[in-house]
């Protein structure tokens, strides 16, 4: 079976004008402009199968949005092949655009002054959706995201989270097969993030849609994505299952220990990360975890002891810092 999204050796380079600060440089650059090539995406390849939800991770400026824009047909690749659902996105054929959706958490497409229900009507006209099908999808989505009382209010009167929910409804009314979600939960509170996450999951399961998602909130990724692709400086650092990322990049575990005597020094057992009264967290090499645990229990009186994997945020952080060090 051919993959739904196939990207091979994708590169996107921008030429940006460059000049030094100051008046003299500004005047010189008017006549003799120097350009610098920025490699936003450099030789990235991956395949995504139908129905997969893949997390696309990387720090700001890593090339995530650029990749999503190439996939949704907004940018032409500098080199490499991109194929989605059998189409070349750059051609922006209407048949292709009808089957995909791009949601950007930091930008709105719904009209500020219109109530959402009217904007949805406009989407119906743009995608020429049959009325009955459109109404059913719309009302389903409105129920799922609990928006019933809000659809008749102008968008400008809604909260940030409510607005984002409306954006998502508007973007998915044509029931796209492939979703490109760029930071869909940015700036939202935890409850709202959870609601949106649940909706994306529901949509993916109900329609078998393929989802490529970027997010800075690891909770999003953990809840939705089995597989993650990590990119940094335009290169792929990791492509595989999320828990494998943890095994591969994290060589430590975190021990949480509660002692009746808060004065005991634990530094001989591992690196003390935090100390909060009687509760201490220790970082120990993964291979030594069982040894250290046994020693602790035999040497000291311990009220409580937990062993945890390094939080995924820390893993990602160490992935990025380690590659920076390697450079």
């Amino acid at each position, binding site marked *: 079976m051919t993959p739904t999204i196939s990207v091979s050796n994708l590169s996107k380079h921008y030429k940006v004008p460059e000049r030094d600060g100051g008046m003299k440089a500004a005047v010189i650059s008017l006549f003799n402009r120097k350009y610098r090539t920025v490699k936003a995406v450099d030789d990235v390849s991956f395949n995504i199968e139908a129905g997969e939800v893949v997390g696309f991770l990387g720090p700001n*400026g890593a090339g995530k*949005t650029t990749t999503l824009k190439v996939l949704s047909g907004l*940018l032409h690749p500098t080199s490499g092949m991109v194929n989605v659902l059998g189409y070349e996105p750059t051609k922006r054929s209407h048949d292709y655009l*009808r089957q995909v*959706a791009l949601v950007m958490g930091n930008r*709105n*497409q719904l009209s500020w002054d219109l109530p959402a229900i*009217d904007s949805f009507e*406009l989407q119906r006209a*743009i995608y020429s959706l049959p009325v009955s099908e459109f109404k059913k999808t719309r009302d389903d989505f409105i129920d799922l995201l609990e928006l019933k009382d809000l659809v008749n209010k102008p968008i400008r009167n809604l909260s940030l989270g409510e607005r984002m929910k409306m954006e998502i409804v508007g973007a998915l009314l044509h029931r796209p097969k492939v979703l490109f979600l760029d930071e869909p939960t940015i700036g939202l509170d935890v409850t709202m993030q959870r609601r949106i996450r649940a909706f994306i999951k529901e949509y993916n399961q109900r329609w078998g849609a393929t989802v490529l998602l970027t997010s800075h909130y690891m909770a999003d990724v953990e809840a939705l994505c089995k597989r993650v692709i990590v990119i940094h400086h335009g290169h792929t650092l990791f492509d595989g299952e999320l828990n494998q990322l943890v095994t591969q990049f994290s060589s430590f575990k975190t021990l949480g220990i509660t002692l009746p005597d808060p004065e005991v020094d634990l530094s001989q057992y591992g690196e003390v990360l935090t100390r909060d009264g009687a509760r201490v967290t220790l970082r120990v090499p993964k291979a030594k975890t069982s040894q250290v645990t046994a020693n602790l229990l035999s040497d000291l009186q311990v009220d409580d002891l937990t062993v945890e994997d390094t939080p995924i945020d820390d893993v990602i952080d160490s992935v990025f810092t380690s590659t920076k060090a390697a450079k």
Partner: protein
Amino acid sequence: MNPIKLALTYLRIGVLNEMQYRINFFIQLLQSFISVATGLIGLSLVFGQVKKLAGWSRPELLAVMGVHLLMGGVIRSIIQPNMERLMDDVRNGTLDFVLTKPADAQILVSVHEFRFWQLVDVIVGIVVISIAFIQLNGTLGILQFFGFLSALIMGGIMLYSVWLMVTSISFWVIRVQEISNLFEGLYAAGRWPVGIYPSWLRTGLTFLVPVAFAVTIPAEALTNRLTGTSLLIALGMTLLFVVLSRGLWRLGLSNYSGASS
């Protein structure tokens, strides 16, 4: 997608929404009255001195004023709001949403916005034109009427195309907001028939900002001055402007990369 159906949907929703803000209707009505009043004062000042202005009599100039008002209403209700929104979309990167829709992007950006109450100017314009016509004791033959109507439509299309070209510049130069002010200023010159201006300005008002085609030529149709030749020239110019603006728009699009990477 049927572009006419799409435009009508946008129109309907725009109208329904603006209906909520009835105060805008009264504000617009007041504005129209002020511009009619100042126009009339201007006319009486001129005709206090002379009997004719560059061959145009007083009721004929009233007809020019009416067409100018009517076309101004069309610009302010449809052309200007859409083009200003396009500039914003380019600057904010929200044009991405237009480009990911299965519809012709030029059509989409041209029907997005609609300021319903600005159409008051269109109606006031029609009233002024009718009064002028009665004063002229004119009779409107079928041919003359269609000449007027087609000149009006072609004029509207030309104004739209020029505006689209200017707006397309925003793909390269992000700040072009001032250009719409400049455009408004030049359009104001169309209140008088372009024949009264010195030739350099007349050329500009004909070929750069086609006020001549949008206002003077329809008024000529009303006052029996229109020749088949100028109607044909208008048709040729319309086609040229449409093709040029479409070309520049597409060139601009290929240069667009969104507001952030």
